[in-house]
């Protein structure tokens, strides 16, 4: 990544005067920044989150809060394994999901998944109940196997980003890195991006009057400020297992395909990529995942779609409806004189 800083004038240039990012068609998955009007944009960047090596330490959640100065969502015990965060929100831009699964013994999940680069240091006590995870021993005699699934969720920085499409103020914009970012000084908190996002990511920040950016739509910026000075996003930097991998999208895609192959060869047949497919409903995302079960197990939508793809048809219906209303009114008056 180049260390060259990008001037803020670039932001205005990205909008042009119309604020149109991707019109009604799909953006080029390699160049959404170019489609948005950036010239000489750097290569598109993103995250490959390999959940098979996530240890659930939540360093990413903490690093994101620290770096971005995000307030807490309250401290509750949610009764959902180690997850007391709950979901992504206006103040929480990384969320580690914990799933405890009981499956019949002898399924593929029992194999050691391995880290891509096994740490030379001895493992550190992370506050988990034990150092080895239940079910890791590989001894399947006469018991049910148990496994943890852990996954750090984040904004997907979609190629076709519904949040960006529907934003009426132009606060959401496509950066030169191909990411999707809210401009805090422009958003008026209309909230339209919230139901528009097919992944349930972005939300209005809730908090006391005076809380930073309260009432505004907030989500992961892919550390736009850090990218601009050539730094790695805080969450990826903090991740001790390289479960969160940051890089150019092309490279990440190659790495991800290799990793799936490795896992399949090791017998982990349920390893699959999620969100990387440019043919998918959001045109492939900038942040994609390697999962060990169906997406909905992790709280992710199985087949998300940016509904703006249907907009031309929806506008047509609205036009017909309006014409019908006008015709009905004319008819009402054209009738009998009474």
């Amino acid at each position: 990544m180049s260390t060259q800083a990008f001037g803020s004038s670039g932001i205005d240039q990205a909008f042009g005067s119309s604020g149109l990012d991707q019109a009604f068609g799909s953006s080029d998955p390699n160049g959404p920044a170019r489609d948005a009007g950036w010239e000489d944009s750097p290569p598109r960047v993103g995250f490959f989150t390999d959940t098979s090596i996530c240890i659930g330490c939540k360093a990413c959640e903490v690093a994101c809060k620290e770096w971005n100065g995000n307030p807490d969502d309250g401290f509750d015990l949610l009764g959902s394994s180690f997850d007391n965060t709950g979901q992504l929100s206006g103040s929480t831009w990384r969320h580690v999901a914990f799933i405890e699964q009981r499956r019949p013994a002898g399924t593929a999940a029992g194999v050691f998944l391995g880290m891509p680069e096994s740490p030379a240091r001895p493992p550190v006590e992370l506050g988990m109940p034990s150092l080895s995870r239940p079910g890791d021993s590989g001894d399947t005699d006469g018991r049910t196997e148990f496994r943890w699934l852990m996954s750090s969720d984040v904004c997907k920085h979609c190629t076709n980003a519904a949040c960006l499409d529907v934003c009426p103020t132009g606060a959401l914009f496509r950066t030169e890195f191909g990411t999707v970012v809210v401009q805090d000084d422009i958003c008026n908190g209309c909230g339209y991006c919230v139901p528009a996002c097919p992944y349930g990511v972005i939300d209005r920040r809730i908090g006391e009057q005076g809380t930073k950016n309260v009432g505004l739509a907030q989500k992961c910026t892919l550390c736009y400020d850090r990218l601009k000075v050539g730094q790695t996003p805080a969450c990826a930097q903090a991740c001790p297992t390289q479960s969160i991998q940051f890089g150019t999208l092309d490279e990440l895609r190659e790495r991800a395909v290799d990793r799936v192959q490795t896992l399949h060869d090791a017998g982990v047949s349920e390893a699959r990529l999620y969100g990387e497919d440019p043919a998918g409903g959001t045109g492939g995302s900038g942040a994609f995942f390697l999962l060990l079960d169906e997406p909905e197990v992790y709280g992710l939508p199985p087949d998300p779609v940016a509904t703006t793809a249907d907009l031309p048809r929806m506008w047509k219906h609205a036009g017909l409806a309006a014409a019908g209303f006008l015709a009905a009114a004319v008819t009402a008056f054209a009738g009998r004189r009474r």
Partner: protein
Amino acid sequence: MVPDATFTSYYGRPVVKPSPWELDIPAYLFLGGLAAGSSLLGAGADLSDRPVLRRAGRLGALAAISLSLVALVRDLGRPSRFLNMMRVLKPTSPMSVGTWILTAYGPGAAVAGAAEAARLLPINLGLIGRLLDVAARPAGLAAAGVAPAVASYTGVLLSDTATPAWHDAHRELPFLFVSSAAAASGGFGMLTAPLDEAGPARRMAVGGALAELAIEQRMEHSMGLSAETLHTGTAGTLMKASKALTLGGALGAAFLGGRSRTAAAISGAALMAGSACTRFGVFEAGQHSAKDPKYTVVPQRERLNRRRAGGNQPTTEEAR
């Protein structure tokens, strides 16, 4: 009705986020529709020489659109930044398009309404009054020209979201909302104008109400699983009330509305209430469908399985 499906979720938590909107938004949907229909009635009454209906239409439109703007601004996270809506015009954003539709509609409705209000004042406004009188007709006609769009775009506003019950209704929602607007404003005309002027309002009310009932029926069938949310909880109660009020109001308007002033007023009020129930009902159904992961996961899982099974299903339902 789709059979109950089993599905997996993450501790039953929502997959998509419900809109952060409060009841201001369904109130806006209702008031915007009422304003739009009232402008149409006002302009028609102006051209066909029905002074009381004209006055009611214009004043009703002004009041309704003013209140609806208050609701819209109140619902923002930062109301003081309302004008940021005017920074851009984005066809990909129904809210942006709607902002500009309202901007085109508002001034005409305001001038026509102000002209009527000025005539009611006990004092003579002199030049201003005369100017308003001259401007009233063109202003009212201009507002009436944009009014249908005010009533119909809100259908797209809701359905261009990942909220299951709203997006699943995207084919019918604009039609449902204009019908509902016709019923409400027709009802308002019946409530406010004398029998010998209210004929067009009555016809609009009955036509709108019947269309609303028919389209709602159709919508429930085409929505799939999320149609359930129109039958349960708060939304279910509201939709039931909407149907009863709309049907009752339509029958009253059709059979008694031309003869009895009282019957006309009661039917008109029922139709307005029915329209309001429709808007709040559709809103609530959407919120519920977003909060329950079932309505996101089950249809998407089915779509995915169909696609995997080989049929190359288009992701965006382009085929329909």
